């Protein structure tokens, strides 16, 4: 284990332990059962599991990280398609997404075939999915069905596959340390989400977008993003950037993450559900946890490619 990963894991342990202690103390002090505190407790317990999974995969290496995100893509896509409109004529397209597109995209990550990795979904799948669907002859809502399927694949597979793809970036002077970039991305984006939640609970007054998400406030949004940017600056040693560069990148990706969460809220609101699923106790579905990462990962990947290489 490198010094960087040692400090990272120690920091995570410290934060999670502190969170568990605070949550226990709050529950002791509360008179009777309190749903908000019970949800907070469930959330923190789920964070222990998720953080352990991420750390274990990162310690095991690129193969484990790639597999973990292929699995997350599968779970996220399953949640997405559950809420999408599809007709029996889409059966083969949907099946193809699960049994061909996910494995091929992550295989391209694993084999570091960058040229095909960037165009496989936006070019090849973009064209072949409607071509396969049209052969079944059902024209009802055709464009709507195809557009939804393509959006789902772009978000849940293409965008998410940029997380393990960080491990393949040949950044000069940073060889062999790319796992730290994955850690930086996840800590800043998920940290931004948690910090927005805290800032919103403490100071939230003005609604950010009441028709999309009634619980989000300007104070939470700006406070969370600002705090996450400072967190990113403090973690500059995980990146090839200096403190100021890391601040800029962290500001960018936590902003993207926050916007991703807002976009996901709009989709959920339109489909009249509160959460994408129920897999993660206290949080909802896998997509409820990954919506920010979906929007931040490709941007982070390309900022690194442009500025660090």
């Amino acid at each position, binding site marked *: 284990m490198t010094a960087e990963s040692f400090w990272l894991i120690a920091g995570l342990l410290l934060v999670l332990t502190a969170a568990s202690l605070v949550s226990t103390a709050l529950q002791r002090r509360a008179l009777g059962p309190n749903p908000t505190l019970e949800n907070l407790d469930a959330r923190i317990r789920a964070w222990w599991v998720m953080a352990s999974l991420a750390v274990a995969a990162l310690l095991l290496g690129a193969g484990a990280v790639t597999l973990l995100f292929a699995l997350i893509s*599968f779970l996220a*896509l*399953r*949640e997405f*398609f*559950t809420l999408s409109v*599809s007709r*029996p004529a889409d*059966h083969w397209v*949907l*099946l193809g997404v*699960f049994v061909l597109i996910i494995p091929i995209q992550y295989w391209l990550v694993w084999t570091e075939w960058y040229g095909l990795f960037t165009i496989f979904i936006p070019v090849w799948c973009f064209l072949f999915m409607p071509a396969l669907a049209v052969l079944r002859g059902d024209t009802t809502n055709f464009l709507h069905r195809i557009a939804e399927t393509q959006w789902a694949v772009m978000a849940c597979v293409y965008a998410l596959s940029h997380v393990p793809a960080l491990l393949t970036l040949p950044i000069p002077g940073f060889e062999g340390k790319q796992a730290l970039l994955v850690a930086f991305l996840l800590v800043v984006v998920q940290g931004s989400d948690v910090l927005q939640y805290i800032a919103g609970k403490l100071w939230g007054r003005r609604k950010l977008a009441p028709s999309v998400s009634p619980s989000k406030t300007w104070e939470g949004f700006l406070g969370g993003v600002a705090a996450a940017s400072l967190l990113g600056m403090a973690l500059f040693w995980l990146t090839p950037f200096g403190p100021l560069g890391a601040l800029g990148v962290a500001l960018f990706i936590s902003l993207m993450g926050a916007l991703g969460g807002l976009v996901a809220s709009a989709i959920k609101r339109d489909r*009249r*559900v509160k959460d994408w*699923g*129920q*897999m993660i106790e206290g949080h909802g579905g896998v997509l409820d946890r990954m919506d920010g990462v979906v929007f931040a990962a490709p941007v982070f990947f390309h900022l690194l490619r442009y500025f660090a290489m």
Partner: protein
Amino acid sequence: MREHGFKRLLRHTAGAGFSGLARLVTGVRPVWQGAAPSGRQRIFFANHASHGDFILLSACLPPSERYRTRPVAAADYWEKTPLRRFVATELFDCVLVEREAGARASDPMAAMLDALDGGSSLIIFPEGTRNTGTEPLPFRSGLYNLATARPHVELVPAFIENMSRVLPKGEFLPVPLLCRVVFGEAVKPEKGEERRAFLDRAREALLALDPRREAGP
């Protein structure tokens, strides 16, 4: 009659295997809305759109209940080829009944009552066929006949969500989508209630469990 040990093992392995597969593909979770899991003898009646329906429903039952719960299936479909016959009788222990009155060699009521009297619970699809539309078809009479012939058996409605998209009629490979099975409050015929009135009420009770219905269009 004592059951052959090997057949029993095969059936239990198939039951556990298919339930596991159903959970893996659909992440299925039971929602016990009006009824709780119990050891009582029951007839589960459900909407029907896919071959996966009864696998999904039995995956939601506790293992001991799963082994005593037998699906009622159409003999004219499941006896067409030796493979279908093997799957229906040996793997899933179906109660096979003739749907068409004219072609009947055996009485469907007798087969179902036999199974009930042997201590089994049943899964039946009162629409009588896999339905490709969005609204359930009118219920066939079997449900009413069973309810009046064996009043001590609970009739529990079970709404199966999304299975029609996981495995539509005519497909053989399932697409992974999240599914739920919503179990509602048991229904039984009122004193003097007519057949059609009861069947419509049972259908309404099943429809009311559709989670998307309350969410609106």
